[in-house]
């Protein structure tokens, strides 16, 4: 075995990390030969309906695997059936009401494990059926890897993985996992002509029987401080002469505001999720909770200052931001997993 | 596309196969076969030589057998020790009296030893001597009667003195 690995290192090995974002697949791959990185590239591909792989990403991956003998495809699984439990024994699953035969588990540091529904894994595998799939990582494990400072693994410091699609929360007491949560952040195509706002809720769970989730059930959300542009336009009569200028200006504001508003809307959701998670943590007797003092963000995408301010002010937490690259970490993890 | 690469692979491997097999055959098998042929040829020659040598040996063995058959008595006679007592017993058949006197010995014709004796005997008449001379050729030893021969009449007998040469194998 060792010999085979040593031999394999001498050849080109390709590690491809794939994340799904809004309506795209983001892909980063590196080519390693003799422990040196020969190539590194990021690519984006559009998604098909139903999140299936479009033909161009399929072609890309297939041709990559034709060109190289050793290709590892790594995907981040952002399904909400994912969760973590302290301890690694299978009996723990029963304790927490999880059916052992219905989940796959990964044990970390022999101290805690992450599990996910087999059906979610199978679903992901079926998406990648034609191209193949080697590793499926849970964001919990990715976040755990980002936490490099051992001192920060304490009950006062909350760790948060902030990516385009989801946020992952973990709280440690040294090596023990004390609390965890995972939220998917939905995308909504905002049509500002449509006055009806749809309820934004986290994705519906399917096929789950009696699993206790640490994330919060959906509620009807109202967006406070939300400004209705259309109403604004109607109220303003006095600027009729400069209507054209105004029209342009409005459109400009409208288009930039749209993004801002969307961002703003999402961040509010994120903030609400974080807050509800923390509340749950404090409230539930199950957690021997202490007061949180710090929150460390591991950000894969842009985070606005607003949410930082919100957290600092409303939740009284010190915010630390680390800029990270999930795809990069996934690649590093897969390299370690292959044992190179 | 896949079909093309398959055919390509097939051709390459077929080619490789043929090259490798032919190389091995020409570099290894053919010289070995040549050597085998040469060795077989040599072997035949040696075998024939052996057959020939064996035949010669057989023939010689036959010759020896024949000769042995012929010269059995003579060979034995050369091998026998000369016992004076036995000889005197023999001579009693012919001579009234006989005595032997040793006269020395020497090597005869490299392989034999010649023992000289002087015999003094009394015979009744010469015919006895004739019989003696005839019968001595059938004696257990090879004995030559030689000169000088003295015969002297004395009363009714003839005192005969003659030389006897006994031949045996020189060990």
């Amino acid at each position: 075995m060792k010999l085979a690995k040593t031999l394999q290192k001498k050849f080109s090995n390709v590690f491809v990390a794939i994340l799904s974002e809004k309506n795209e697949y983001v892909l980063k791959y590196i080519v390693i030969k003799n422990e040196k990185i020969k190539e590194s590239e990021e690519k984006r591909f559009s998604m098909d309906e139903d999140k299936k792989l479009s033909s161009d990403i399929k072609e890309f991956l297939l041709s990559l695997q034709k060109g190289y003998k050793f290709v590892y495809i790594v995907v981040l699984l952002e399904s909400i059936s994912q969760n973590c439990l302290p301890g690694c024994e299978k009996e723990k699953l029963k304790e927490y009401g999880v059916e052992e035969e219905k989940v796959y588990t990964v044990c970390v540091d022999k101290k805690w494990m992450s599990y996910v529904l087999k059906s979610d894994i199978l679903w992901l595998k079926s998406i990648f059926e034609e191209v193949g799939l080697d590793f499926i990582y849970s964001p919990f494990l990715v976040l755990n890897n980002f936490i490099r400072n051992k001192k920060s693994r304490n009950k006062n410091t909350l760790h948060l993985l902030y990516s385009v699609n989801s946020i992952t929360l973990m709280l440690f007491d040294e090596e023990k996992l004390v609390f965890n949560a995972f939220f998917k952040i939905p995308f909504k195509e905002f049509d500002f002509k449509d006055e009806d706002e749809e309820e934004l809720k986290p994705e519906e769970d399917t096929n789950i029987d009696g699993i206790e989730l640490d994330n919060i059930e959906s509620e009807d959300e109202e967006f406070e401080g939300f400004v209705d542009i259309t109403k604004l336009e109607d109220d303003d009569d006095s600027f009729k002469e400069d209507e054209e200028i105004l029209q342009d200006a409005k459109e400009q504001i409208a288009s930039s505001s749209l993004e801002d508003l969307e961002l703003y809307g999402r961040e509010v959701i994120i903030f609400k999720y974080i807050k509800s998670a923390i509340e749950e943590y404090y409230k539930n007797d199950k957690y021997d909770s202490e007061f949180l003092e710090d929150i460390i963000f591991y950000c894969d995408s842009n985070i606005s200052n607003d949410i930082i301010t919100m957290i600092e002010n409303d939740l009284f937490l010190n915010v630390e931001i680390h800029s990270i690259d999930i795809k990069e970490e996934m690649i590093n993890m897969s390299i370690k997993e292959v044992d190179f | 596309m896949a079909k093309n690469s398959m055919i390509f692979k097939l051709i390459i491997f077929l080619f490789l196969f043929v090259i490798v097999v032919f190389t091995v055959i020409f570099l290894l098998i053919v010289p070995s076969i040549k050597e085998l042929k040469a060795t077989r040829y040599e072997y035949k020659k040696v075998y024939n030589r052996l057959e020939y040598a064996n035949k010669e040996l057989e023939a010689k063995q036959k010759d020896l057998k024949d000769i042995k058959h012929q010269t059995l008595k003579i060979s034995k006679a050369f091998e026998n020790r000369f016992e004076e007592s036995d000889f005197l017993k023999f001579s009693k058949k012919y001579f009234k009296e006989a005595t032997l006197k040793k006269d020395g010995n020497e090597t005869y014709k490299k392989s034999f030893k010649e023992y000289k004796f002087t015999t003094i005997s009394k015979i009744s008449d010469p015919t006895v001597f004739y019989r003696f001379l005839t019968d001595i050729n059938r004696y257990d030893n090879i004995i030559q009667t030689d000169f000088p021969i003295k015969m002297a009449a004395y009363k009714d007998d003839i005192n005969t003195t003659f030389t006897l040469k006994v031949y045996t194998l020189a060990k």
Partner: protein
Amino acid sequence: MRYSFITPRKKELIDNITKMWLLFIGFVVIMLFAFDLLIKLKISSLKNQMNEYNSKIAAAKSETKKLQKKILFLNKEKAVAEEIYASNSVLKDSIKNLFDLVPDQITLQKVVMDKNSLILYGITPSKDTFNFLLGSPLKSIFQSSNTIFYLGKDGWYRFVSSNKIVGNDGDRL
């Protein structure tokens, strides 16, 4: 380190077809080598046999030489013996001839025979009787023949006849 929920796919450096072809070619090559080995073994065994045969040939040849020596020796023995037998026989004939030569009238008293000489001592009624009956035959046989007569008391002559064959032949009568 294990991070993934699933295990990775098997990666092959060499695909099945290549593996099969390589195995096939390897197998054929091994068979060829085995065949070659067989040939070499056969050669070696033949060479061994040849060595054996060569030593057998040497043994047979030396044995033949030995036998030849023996045969020669036996022949020699035979020749020697037969020579001796012949000489005995010739001696017998000579003596017989001599005594036959002697007529009744003459009595021999002593005979001394040697290789090349014959001395007779005897009594004869008369010189002539001797000379005629014994002397002349003796003269014809021997190269030199001399007789001395002594007259005896009874009127018979004693004679001593000395006969010699001069020369190296040592011819017998």
